[in-house]
């Protein structure tokens, strides 16, 4: 699946998107945030406060307890500030 990042999550990680292949033990969005946090300092920094991170699966907002099975694109970003 593809992970995409926006705003300061993107800046901290240093990339806009990447292919990821989490193990089967990573079931929910929250699990995935934990798994990504282990990938290096930049990820740990981006996800240091997991509860402020918003996520979308295939372009629809989801909560952290949403399952990631079947997702093609998972996005992580800060709270929105448009409008």
């Amino acid at each position: 699946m593809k992970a995409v990042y926006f705003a300061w999550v993107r800046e901290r990680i240093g990339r806009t998107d990447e292919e990821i292949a989490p193990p089967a033990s990573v079931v929910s969005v929250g699990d995935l945030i934990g798994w990504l946090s282990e990938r290096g300092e930049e990820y740990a920094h981006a996800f240091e406060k997991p509860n402020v991170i918003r996520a979308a699966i295939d372009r629809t907002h989801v909560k952290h307890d949403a399952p990631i099975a079947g997702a093609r694109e998972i996005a992580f970003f800060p709270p929105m500030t448009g409008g």
Partner: protein
Amino acid sequence: MSAPDRRISIQAEDFDAAAEIAALTQGRKDVGAVVTFTGLCRDEGETLAALELEHYPGMAEEEISRVVTQAESRWPLLGVRVIHRYGKIAPGGNIVLVVATSSHRLAAFEAAEFLMDYLKTRAPFWKKEHRLDGAARDWVSAKDADDRALERWEK
């Protein structure tokens, strides 16, 4: 009742509120009320060079579309326009336009407010401030007040 006249655009270019209002009203006699919201880039402290708006292409259109569909099911709307810009916007420049038309004013007012409250908190856009002195470029923080504004529609 035919489907409302709807257009959603995510664009870098500026918009023309008058042209959007004209498109929703000209040649028809059923529109009694037009409510237009224009959101602009503010700089009260004379310190801002520009706001830079990042967005999630694809999702921005889809999410706004979902919110417009909700508004259409909730109020008897004749037309809706939502235009949200991205890229760098100088102080005084346009950021967002919402137009809602209806036979009656209360529907048009409420729908426009609902759309703005949802755009603020659910449309995937992020603002970054570029300062005139070239200092740290800061991401704008989300406001609790915007989350609270949503609550009035959840009943």
